[in-house]
């Protein structure tokens, strides 16, 4: 039974967009926490920790995200964890985000000149004081713009959760397309909605880049 594309369908898409945004947020928070750990392990003066973090990053960045989604979707139930698509998508997108955020943050941390460590040391600041009062405030400023920029990738990549059946914007578009058979309209609207979210984030990232480009 094929029907016309209606206002109700638009509402359905907007509601699905909420799940897209929510999934991206969950992955950003989960990936942020895990990414912090990755960045720390990567910068620690302990070779095995560096090696472990690097292998993790290579594994995540060297395989397709779609594959990771399927592995978690089918793998977690085997561990006795009863998961729906939402949980599998949240976990695998968090892991995906952690590898990228970890690298962004490591880069920011290491881009603060070693002379800043020395300047702190020469004033008698302890290691922790140098880290928290001198290095981190600068590293955080440097990392803000690329972190927001990565959120664009994250929002776009939530669309892959559609392929394990999680009803976010892309999956909702597939459902409505099947009912209305107006693929160009439906996917066009979906594209516009993604664009509004992602373009806003991109612009924000660029503005932050300009704002924090000066070292201060």
């Amino acid at each position: 039974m094929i029907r016309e594309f209606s206002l109700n369908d638009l509402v359905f898409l907007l509601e699905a967009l909420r799940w897209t945004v929510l999934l991206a947020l969950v992955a950003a928070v989960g990936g942020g926490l895990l990414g912090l750990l990755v960045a720390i392990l990567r910068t620690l003066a302990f070779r095995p920790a560096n090696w472990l973090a690097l292998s993790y990053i290579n594994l995540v960045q060297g395989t397709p995200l779609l594959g990771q989604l399927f592995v978690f979707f089918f793998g977690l139930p085997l561990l006795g964890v009863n998961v729906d698509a939402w949980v599998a998508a949240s976990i695998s997108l968090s892991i995906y985000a952690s590898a990228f955020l970890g690298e962004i943050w490591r880069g920011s941390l290491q881009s603060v000149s070693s002379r800043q460590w020395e300047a702190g040391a020469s004033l008698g600041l302890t290691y922790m004081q140098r880290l928290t009062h001198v290095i981190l405030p600068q590293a955080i400023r440097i990392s803000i713009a690329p972190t927001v920029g990565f959120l664009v990738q994250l929002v776009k990549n939530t669309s892959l959760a559609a392929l394990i059946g999680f009803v976010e914007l892309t999956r909702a578009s597939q459902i409505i397309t099947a009912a209305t058979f107006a693929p160009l309209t439906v996917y066009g609207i979906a594209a516009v909605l993604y664009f509004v979210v992602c373009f806003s984030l991109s612009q924000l990232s660029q503005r932050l880049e300009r704002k924090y480009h000066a070292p201060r």
Partner: protein
Amino acid sequence: MNYNFKFSALWPYMPEILSGVILTLQLASVAMLFGLAIGLAVAIGRVSSRPAIRMAARVYVEAIRNTPLLVQLFIVFFGLPSLGLRLGANTAAVIALSINLGAYSAEILRAGFESVRVGQVEAGRSLGLTAAQTFRHVVLFPAIKAIYPALASQFVLLMLTTSVVSSIGVTELFGQAAFIDSRTYRSFEVYTLITLSYLVFTLGFRALFSAIYWAVFVRRSHR
């Protein structure tokens, strides 16, 4: 956990996996080629003297970079037929991947152009180099050297991204996973092995590309 893992169930499907690998590499190579061509045109468009062309190039780049590839793919494969343009899955995949890559490579190429400054060209000419020599040694070679690492990692990324086109029925490597899954009901084993097999290609290509970089750019500049 009382599940019996049976990775050996995949063994009979080696021919399918192999043909999937070949199609994946073909898709990535062809899309890279077309994507670079589109990217070059767009990068030139972005510095055009005509505002309309500059604007069009910018809209293209922003539109592509701020929407998911999956939606772009669906628009090409499911949307275009309603305009009377019916495409096979493989063709639609190549088109969507090329258009997608075009936007990213345009930005990479633009950065490459900007890395060569006017002063260097003038320096080249003032040393008595001909225009052709200046272009080759002062403009082209350094520009390619500057963008090579970004293009190399873009290719690896593209190869991983091709997995997405399995969703419209293309039987590249990830598409074969779905096929084998439907025959064996060994979803976890199938997807784990197929996913990990991409890692082999990622690491292989990275090694290959850095070997090429070393041979072409590093060794040469030390001679």
